[in-house]
């Protein structure tokens, strides 16, 4: 083996080792940073552990929005079967309305409230986030062509 081949081998080995480290890091971080999507029924039937962040999607229940004190907002996210109370401190997106689709990020606390860190409303009239559609489908409240 001449020195050029040796060098090349060393380089390939280093690359493989670095690739291995990278793959391990990617897999580990994916495991740490994935957020599951849950429907209100999942939450109501106790399938979601306390304190673990996830995405909750559904419709903003009619008549559930209560504002205050301060910048706090409370509302419920429903899939037609169950509704989960949500507490959020922040500015709601402009498209946030009762009866419309919403995806919230956060975790359930000890009293069964969902503490949201982020609220995303659908982007336009015609569009429904796939997660919300999924939620409604799971609960049997989705009508094809409803969009």
């Amino acid at each position, binding site marked *: 083996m001449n020195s*050029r081949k040796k*060098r090349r081998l060393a380089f390939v080995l280093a*690359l493989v080792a*670095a*690739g291995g480290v*990278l793959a391990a*890091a*990617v897999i580990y*971080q*994916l495991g*740490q*940073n*994935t*957020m*599951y*999507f849950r429907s209100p029924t999942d939450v109501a039937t106790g399938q979601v552990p306390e304190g673990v962040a996830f*995405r909750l999607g559904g419709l903003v229940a009619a008549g559930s929005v209560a*504002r*205050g004190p*301060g*910048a706090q*907002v409370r509302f419920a996210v429903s899939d037609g079967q169950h509704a989960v109370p949500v507490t959020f*401190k*922040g*500015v*709601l*997106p*402009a*498209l*946030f309305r009762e009866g419309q689709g919403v*995806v919230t990020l956060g975790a359930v606390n000890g009293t069964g409230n969902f503490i949201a860190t982020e609220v995303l409303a659908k*982007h*336009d*009239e015609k*569009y429904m*986030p*796939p*997660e919300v559609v*999924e939620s409604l489908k799971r609960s049997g409240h989705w009508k094809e062509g409803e969009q």
Partner: protein
Amino acid sequence: MTGELGQVALCFALALSLVMAGAGLAGVRQANAAARGIAVSATLGLLVFTALAFGALTYAYVTSDFSIQTVANNSNTLKPLIYRISGVWGNHEGSMLLWLLVLALYAALVALLGRGGPRLTSGAVGIQGLLAVAFLLFILFTSNPFLRLDPAPFEGAGLNPLLQDIGLALHPPMLYAGYVGLSASFAYAAAALMVGERGWARAARPFMLLAWIALTCGIALGSWWAYYELGWGGFWFWDPVENASLMPWLIATALLHSALASERSGAFRTWSLLLAITGFSLSLIGTFLVRSGVLSSVHSFASDPARGFFIMVLIALAIGGALALFALRAHTLQGGASFEPVSRETTLLLNNVFLVAACACVFVGTLYPLVLDAVSGTKISVGPPYYALTFAPIFFALLLLVPLGPRLGWKRGDLKAAWRALYPALGLAGVAALAVLALISPRTVTATLAFAVAGWLIGASLLDIRKRKGARASAFAAALAHAGLGVTLMGVAGTTAWRSEALEVLGPGQTMQVGPYILRFDGVARVEGPNYIADQGRLALMDGGKVKAMLRPEQRFYPAENQSVSDTAIRTTGLRDLYVALGDDRGQGRFAIRAYVSPLAPFIWLGGLVMALGGILSLFGRLRLRAPAPEDAAESQAQAAE
């Protein structure tokens, strides 16, 4: 009439693109000079008819011809002219037509410039003809923008108000110029494999540069839009759609660097081919992700399974075909020059390793949720921390190496001399880090490191610019692009580490504090825009007892579209943004108000602009030096003799 005209123009374009593909590919053989002439004419014809179709659609939008379905669905008479025009590509059908128009433009450029000789050009034109055929079939059969509506409605449904914005009017054409620009590199790579042409990288370089410049601008525009329009004060969300544009950029950047080595020293020739193929494949995958409706985002206009399927087949054919060609023919281009471990080539190699690794991290994070959903039905999303812990360290390591590259010679470099020449840059890095530690609180490790690296990058670029006065434009261009990275890095680090945020519900006359600023809420007034009504908040920026400036964030309601959109107010000093968004009505004249102070935020996009300027300089510096340099001619002779 215009609808039919557009439709007919598209059919002619299809016929011409078939000719272009057939004649172009036939012209790869030395003897078929006549076919090459036909291919060039067909390419120009494709451009004319595609432009005609695009013009017809634009005319229909401008004149609000609601008998055409896409116009009725995406426009209305109340919209200002500029958004009627941008509405052409603010929907799936029109955006695909724009894609085709850009493809035709690049193909015409390739045909007219004729870089790399007639056979290589002919092959590249043929490949672009094949792509045009595929996209024309896609447009005509799944996304025809000229479908009629009978009876025609009196008024159109309008355009999503989020898209009625200057940043987003320009963002798609820019991004498409980038995506489709990579198709030119792809076409050159495939043609080089057919012809066995080693000098393809030099021929394709202006197109790589154009694509890279457009992608850089497109990504910066998209990020800027997200910042001022979405009202969260963030500039990058690691949204799958953003990632879809970032991945081709990373690969295009890698390609620019590896092609440089292929051109100058003959190293990484086959690797550059693979990158060209990968870059365009990622553009196609990005289009698929964005257009097929598998992602929830402002970009997914419509979810039609037929469209997603068609693009999937196109991706499979393009990637599969190109890789098969690569497997069969790559050996004809082999014979890379050797180089020492300490050399310009090694730094370019490391550049590529880091960029490809960073791209792989983004790729996995973007596609993992889709694959998991398809396989098990489990819906998940990958959060920003994943990217912060995988992508960011790799990119950071890459930035550390950037100043070394240009200082090492080709084949064999002198690391000690390079290092010594960089002492002033190292000094600047140290000063930047110390200044950050001493002057700005809170003190964070990442921000300090980021400023040190930014100082290192900018310092090295300044040295380059000073040292090489009057030298090659390309060296100056590289220095500018690398300095741009440093500027963006400062912006990202500054806003991330030192942003302050306040959220309060205020009645008229009440004040809030955000960072060093005091804001007084002076109530809300009703104002009318061209096609919206807005609640306009009045916030006075106080300086002692006096009003220093007024900020007017709005909540706009678009009656035609029945939608609300918030419009932020930003006051910038160039070094610091004061950013205010008007929230929801809390009754009795009280409103939720969100305010941010984002230090150095403008640097994020300023850096992008500097990078793009570097690219433009490189492009024009190169077009002037079109004739191959003597060293390369000697070298290709040497390689032919091997």
